């Protein structure tokens, strides 16, 4: 149904319509994890992986729901799949790299409530992407999320040492930075078309 090129989809998802800075998805981990560069990049990688898996599953589920004509089960099945994927990823990371598991801490199970992943599944379903388009979309969204997270972490690390008015400390400052990043990303508009 959509004849956007794969490259357009990728650029669109990662830069032009960045999931965090344009759609405001994934704000919770964005504001929570972005204070340290290292954790930010790892979180970004984990989220990208979960996005990829969820995207594929969502594609399959949507096809199934259309076949049995039960569109109202979409939300429940998506969230169930995402929760299970995160559970699996958690167990996998625990086994493969306990150090990474510890450094991610509480934020790993929190990926389940990451609006960005559910948002990805819902958007791609609404747009009616084909299987390959879905995968590219997920990779683009994950890359964009990681990019935003890493940028934010880098900026906040520097800001820790700066002198800012007491009243802006904390979330307010983070939001203002996010706003500026968002404006900057608007410059990508029109790219890839």
């Amino acid at each position: 149904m959509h004849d956007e090129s794969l490259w357009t989809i990728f650029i669109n998802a990662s830069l032009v319509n960045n999931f965090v800075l344009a759609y405001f998805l994934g704000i919770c981990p964005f504001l929570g994890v972005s204070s340290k560069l290292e954790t930010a990049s790892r979180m970004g990688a984990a989220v990208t992986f979960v996005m990829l898996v969820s995207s594929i599953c969502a594609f399959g589920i949507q096809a199934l729901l259309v076949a049995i004509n039960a569109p109202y089960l979409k939300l429940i099945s998506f969230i169930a799949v995402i929760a299970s994927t995160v559970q699996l990823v958690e167990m996998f990371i625990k086994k493969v790299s306990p150090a990474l598991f510890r450094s991610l801490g509480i934020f790993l199970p929190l990926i389940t409530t990451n609006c960005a992943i559910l948002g990805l599944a819902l958007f791609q379903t609404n747009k009616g992407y084909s299987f390959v388009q879905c995968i590219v979309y997920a990779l683009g969204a994950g890359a964009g999320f990681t990019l935003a997270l890493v940028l934010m972490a880098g900026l906040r690390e520097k800001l820790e040492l700066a002198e800012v008015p007491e009243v802006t400390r904390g979330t307010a400052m983070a939001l203002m930075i996010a706003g500026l990043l968002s404006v900057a990303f608007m410059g990508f508009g029109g790219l890839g078309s």
Partner: protein
Amino acid sequence: MATLPKSGTDEFIKGLWKENPVFVQVLGMCPVLAVSNTAMNALAMGLATAFVLVMSNIVVSSLRSFIPKQVRIATYILIIATFVTVVDYLIQAVSLDLYKALGAFISLIVVNCLILGRAEAFASKNTIARSAMDGLGMGIGFAFALFCLGAVREILGNGTLFEAQLFHDSFQNWVVMILPSGGFFTLAGWLLLFNWFKQRKARREHASTLGLSKETA
């Protein structure tokens, strides 16, 4: 100071100001910043979230002795997702225009940390009546906060409020307000304001306790 038993209305009021989910707890912002570009959208989104919050609080509270601890999060999510699906279809039936404006973000109410948070922290441990009040208070506080966000963005970014022209034609719209960055800036602005209020209050209380201790000294 010992915590006095709270009445039902107390539960309601705390969600409006003292423990306002957006301005104080900074919870559940994800799905809402994107659709708060006009006052109408923001209010609709806020009320939809409030509806889901109240209903899920009521159901979770009434089933709290029935659901074992191990499966509680999964069941809560199931309940919340159900009510979100219900709200989704209700909005579609009421106004297709509103549905087009809010889009997939209605479904994203299900991952609003606020709702799961209240179910876990409050509804699972309190009576149905209290949980309903808590949900109502938090929900309306949330809708109010969203409305503040949407109103500022619409007034500055479009010169209107609820589609009604406010300013003279020569008013230059601050288009940035309607864009995503405007959402970030406006929320930052409101938080700043709240922080300032909090600090002023803390300073006053600090000063008054100092004054008291001076008197008793």
